[in-house]
């Protein structure tokens, strides 16, 4: 049985159902991200795990124990907030020692634990400072140490990096991940930044309107999005509309293209959405392939991003910036080529 088990979680505020039939099993030591747009219910699920919200229905189990009805202070969960939420009247050391003190640990032991935690987050000398004397990144690290000081069974982080600037965000996310691996602590990380989710996690839960749209490894989520929503939210996939011909072919703007997988069981003439990764498409000036017109060309350093108009649709494609071949001019006629494997048939949201 999984270490953290959420089954059939539902949450309504008044008449609006904010979380719907949410199932998730997390293994011990796993790092799972909740990724989704604002208002999709990420925080609400996290707060139910922490005990700050009561689920309307469903159960939450940690290590086999049903904690659904337990109060937040009985759950042994560490929580890190977007706004740091350090106690302003206490020093860094007192903040970190708060949990152990509540737990009734002896003074000497608390001191040791605080020292260990401050060393862990790389701020061993800042114990006597007050929160307002620290930078945002330092404050968030202290908040992390404070959450970890009670040796929680589960660590919950709600957009912990959103208030920081870009550079610190990247370095801190690597630190958090390294720390999590070192401690082997089961972690849920909430974010609306796909890069953050994909780079840090063992598994990503893409959330959409209170439901888990797809659960999988970052590679799976990025490479094989299951629904239109996941495809459009994660990465920069092209979404193309067409209709089914048979199990191996579809029609895109009047042109017949082969599709390797995903069309079984769909009726002829049925509308279908496929996704196409920009780096899977290559560009030719003549010969075979779909005929289109270059709309715009953008240099992104090593990569050139070209937008090609193909009938009613626009396809974005990325190619390496090679000095030997000049990129096409806008308005030039081109041919687009991709394999039957690269067309991902998407399900409904």
């Amino acid at each position, binding site marked *: 049985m999984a270490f953290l088990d959420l089954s059939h979680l539902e949450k309504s505020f008044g008449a609006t159902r904010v979380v719907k039939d949410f199932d998730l099993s997390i293994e011990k030591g796993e790092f799972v991200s909740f990724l989704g747009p604002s208002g999709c219910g990420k925080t609400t699920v996290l707060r139910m795990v922490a005990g700050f919200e009561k689920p309307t229905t469903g159960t939450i189990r940690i290590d086999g124990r049903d904690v659904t009805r337990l109060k937040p202070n009985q759950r042994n969960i560490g929580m890190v907030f977007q706004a740091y939420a350090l106690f302003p009247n206490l020093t860094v050391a007192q903040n970190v020692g708060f*949990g152990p003190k*509540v737990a009734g640990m002896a003074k000497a032991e608390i001191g040791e634990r605080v020292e260990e935690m401050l060393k862990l987050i790389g701020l061993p000398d800042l114990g006597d400072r007050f929160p307002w004397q620290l930078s945002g990144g330092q404050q968030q690290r202290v908040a992390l140490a404070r959450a970890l000081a009670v040796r929680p069974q589960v660590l919950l982080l709600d957009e912990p990096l959103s208030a920081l600037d870009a550079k610190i965000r990247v370095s801190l996310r690597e630190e958090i991940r390294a720390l999590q691996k070192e401690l082997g602590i089961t972690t849920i990380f909430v974010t609306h930044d796909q890069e953050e989710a994909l780079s840090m996690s063992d598994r990503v839960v893409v959330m959409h309107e209170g439901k888990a749209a797809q659960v999988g490894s970052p590679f799976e989520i990025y490479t094989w999005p299951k629904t239109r929503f996941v495809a459009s939210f994660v990465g920069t996939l092209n979404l193309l509309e067409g209709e089914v011909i048979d199990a191996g072919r579809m029609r895109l703007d009047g042109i017949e293209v082969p599709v390797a997988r995903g069309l079984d069981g769909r009726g002829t003439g049925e509308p279908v959405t496929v996704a196409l990764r920009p780096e899977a498409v290559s560009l030719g000036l003549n010969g075979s392939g779909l005929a289109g017109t270059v709309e715009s060309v953008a240099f992104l350093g090593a990569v050139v991003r070209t937008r090609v108009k193909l009938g009613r649709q626009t396809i974005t494609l990325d190619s390496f910036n090679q000095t030997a071949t000049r990129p096409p001019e806008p308005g030039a006629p081109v041919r687009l080529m991709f394999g039957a494997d690269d067309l991902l048939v998407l399900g409904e949201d």
Partner: protein
Amino acid sequence: MRGRLWSIAVVLIGALYFFLPLIGMFEFSLRMKRGVYSFEAYRVVLGDPHFQQTFGYSVVLALLTIVLGVLIVVPTAYWIRLRLPSIRPVVEFVTLLPLVIPPIVIVFGYIRIYNTSSWLPLTGSWLGTNLLILFGYATLSLPYMYRAVDTGLRTIDVATLTEAAQSLGAGWGRILATVILPNVFVSVLSGAFLTFAIVIGEYVFAALLNLDTFGPYMVWMGSNRAYEPSALAVIAFAITWACMALIQLLTHFSTFAKARR
């Protein structure tokens, strides 16, 4: 230029109106000994055992009022900010009532409800009467105490700090004592000094409940002596002003500390 002259004139007239009686009173309080200025009246007042006794009594009452006020107001204001923000206007209105309803009405109400032939005869015993006046004073201090604490709570993120403490295992008592109270301490103090100033000079409650506090003593002095009442009045003024100055000082220091945040 003309407008400036006018405003200076107005301030001057206002200051004269306010300070002349005070100066007059002070001057008068120094004339107990014929022909020379002296602090004789102050010496007599401060040496009067009755003064010491009533003043000490009032100080103890004031301190107890502050403790009671903090115990009532801090958890209430906290809970309303945290869980019942919608009823805040109602509570604010209720806490303002003591400013609108004259103390004499309140104390008559008390005496009617808690007299010796009632179901809870508080006025019948020494302890009961003291409890009653304590509750009365806590009521009088509500408008100042509640506002001060509520303003203090506004400067911290009550909800998130509470949740952070909860996730670390803390219960309500600990959250109030170690997270909330220390962070609104300066506000509590400024409410406390106002309460102190009010309770020290309070007359109506004490007189009608027949308690020998500083307020009735001042009145008794006023109707029986010549110089000493002036000295007393100056002392009472000094206490009030000291309280005000302390509030100013505290607010100054707390805004200073926040600016550095």
